[in-house]
């Protein structure tokens, strides 16, 4: 093999890598969708109580079902995405529990500013996760 053949083989390998990398970006969409659903759910939860809570919660449930369906259809599973995705999901869930507890304990239900700030904080790990996924090699 001469230098030009080796360089061509390297270029071809990089081309394939780019193709797969482009097809590996789907977790970004998943995490952004989850972040938006969690934000909308948590914001709405601050203004409802009792059985009405199930209405906003159902938005996240529908989004989670869509995520499962969408992920199952993909042809490429990126390296290490489950670990990165789990960190976002775990952090989001912990923050959600803290948000609901603080909202209830401090009597902040029905106030738009705490609801907005709290919802953004809960959704932040998903958006950070999406950013990390978008830059993943």
């Amino acid at each position: 093999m001469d230098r030009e053949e080796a360089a061509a083989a390297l270029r071809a390998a990089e081309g394939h890598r780019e193709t797969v990398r482009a097809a590996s970006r789907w977790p970004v969409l998943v995490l952004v969708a989850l972040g938006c659903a969690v934000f909308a759910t948590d914001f709405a939860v601050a203004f409802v109580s009792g059985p009405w809570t199930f209405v906003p919660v159902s938005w996240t449930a529908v989004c989670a079902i869509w995520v499962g369906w969408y992920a199952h259809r993909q042809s490429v599973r990126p390296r290490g995405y489950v670990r990165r995705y789990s960190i976002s999901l775990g952090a989001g869930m912990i923050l959600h529990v803290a948000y609901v507890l603080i909202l209830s304990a401090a009597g902040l239900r029905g106030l738009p500013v705490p609801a907005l700030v709290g919802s953004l904080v809960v959704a932040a790990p998903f958006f950070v996760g999406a950013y990390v996924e978008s830059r993943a090699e």
Partner: protein
Amino acid sequence: MSIVAVLAAADQVEFAFVRDAVEITDPTLSKQVTTLEKAGYVEVIKGYAGKRPRTWLKLTPEGREAFVRHLAALRAIADGAGMP
């Protein structure tokens, strides 16, 4: 080389995606994958999407190491440090 390059960029890749990316036919890819599997470089995972069977291909750690070595050798040649 092309098949392994595709697999190296992800954890698992579906058979059809590799076929389209490398632009070869099903039987050709199947034959190449069998050879790579026998060498211990590729793992074949069978699954289902609903009722439709799906085949996933995954590079083993040995396959990944061999690919990295191969790339290093190619770089050495391309940079003029290897054989002319």
